């Protein structure tokens, strides 16, 4: 069994899942079939919008599989549509998209890679000397072309590994717990978020925010952790340049 260095899922996520299940069950038992259909439909349609918007931002074709599934399943159960015969067409389309949808889920194609990134960064760190500081860690200089960094950041975004903030002289790769809050521009200030910066000059620096540091079970030796995080992103950059990005995905999936 693999030993995790990150604490288990936060209570917030568990609570949201439980509330959704309770809403569905109580809709069925208390409100009857129509209320159940409303709940089912309204639980899916926002996800259709979200996944469509994520596709617009990332241009990752995977979202063209998930967005129609949420849309058609939502429309199938939407009570005003449900009374019409056309709902059968939506049901068939939903069934058709269900297969690629579940393949996407199983293959972790739309997963946010927050936990995996933190876990991989912590993997080589053995010490537990703490030493947290909110200063960024200068991780040295790499040989990198501006265009390579730009394409790399786009790849990381498409694969939900990091959210890139592009500036004239550098790209800031934010590693967010909630990717949607960045995609939907709810969050814009990276200063309190964990991030890796690639400057066009090749300088790399890392900042691990307090929230992410607290996500680890132990008080890992902080400079080692920052150094390891930088090494991870530099290694991935080299793999990306060699067009071996599938190795990055494999490493994330294997964790």
């Amino acid at each position, binding site marked *: 069994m693999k030993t995790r260095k990150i604490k288990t899922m936060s209570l917030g996520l568990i609570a949201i899942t439980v509330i959704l299940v309770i809403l569905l069950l109580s809709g069925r038992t208390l409100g009857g079939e129509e209320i159940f259909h409303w709940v089912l439909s309204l639980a899916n349609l926002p996800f259709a919008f979200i996944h469509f918007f994520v596709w617009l931002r990332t241009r990752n074709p995977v979202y063209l599989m998930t967005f129609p599934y949420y849309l058609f399943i939502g429309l199938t159960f939407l009570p005003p549509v449900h009374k019409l015969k056309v709902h059968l067409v939506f049901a068939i389309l939903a069934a058709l998209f269900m297969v690629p949808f579940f393949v996407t889920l199983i293959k972790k194609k739309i997963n946010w890679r927050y936990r995996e990134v933190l876990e991989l960064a912590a993997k080589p760190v053995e010490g537990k000397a703490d*030493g947290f*500081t909110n200063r960024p860690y*200068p991780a040295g200089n790499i040989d990198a072309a501006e265009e390579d960094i730009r394409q790399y950041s786009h790849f990381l975004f498409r694969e939900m590994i990091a959210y890139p903030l592009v*500036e004239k*002289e550098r790209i800031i790769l934010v590693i967010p717990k909630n990717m949607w809050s960045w995609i939907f521009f709810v969050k814009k200030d990276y*200063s309190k978020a964990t991030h890796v910066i690639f400057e066009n000059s090749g300088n790399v620096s890392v900042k691990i925010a307090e929230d992410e540091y607290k996500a680890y079970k132990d008080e890992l030796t*902080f*400079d080692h952790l920052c150094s390891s995080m930088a090494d991870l992103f530099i290694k991935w950059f080299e793999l990306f340049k060699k067009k071996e990005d599938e190795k990055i995905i494999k490493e994330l999936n294997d964790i």
Partner: protein
Amino acid sequence: MGNESLEFSGFEDVRKISTLLSREYTYNFLKLLMNYRDISASEAASRLELHIKTAQDFLEGLTELGILEKKSVKEDKRPYFRYSVLKNDLRINLDISAFSFPGLDEFKKKRIREIKESGAVFKEGKEMAIRAVTIFKGKGRSRVSNRINLTHCQGKFLFHLPFPTGEPMAVEKIIVKSGLNKECLPEIYDIVQLMIRNKVIE
């Protein structure tokens, strides 16, 4: 009245004479002093439309610095002071190079790093530099914060300062790592001394 010049070269004396000279009424007051044989505080105050305490303080200030002399005079059994000019050629000479920090050569060799749980908050800037640092003093309700905006040299230096769990590094090595030159040393010295005093750097 003496014709000898009086030189102010120590910082404290320069500060005191500058304070007195910067008053709004100084020009007219000095005119009175130069043209009257001697004058009392109440005479000067009434002539210049000042509060007697203001005139008194000004005259006492100049006397303390050796510019005026005062003589006690009795009138109706009540003693008071009359002031006259002692030195009429005042020279201010402040060599600010004397303010350079001492012991910079020794400081360069000092091995430093950030202290664990220093509580300081660093604000990240662009180009691998820290823009500002906030240092907290005291605890609980009496805790006060002091935000220091950093110069380019200080920001670059603090960006490359070893972490609390890192090996301490000599100041001169951090300067090289930060891509700075030795001209930055005095301002780095200043911020480092401040942070040592506030238990942010060891």
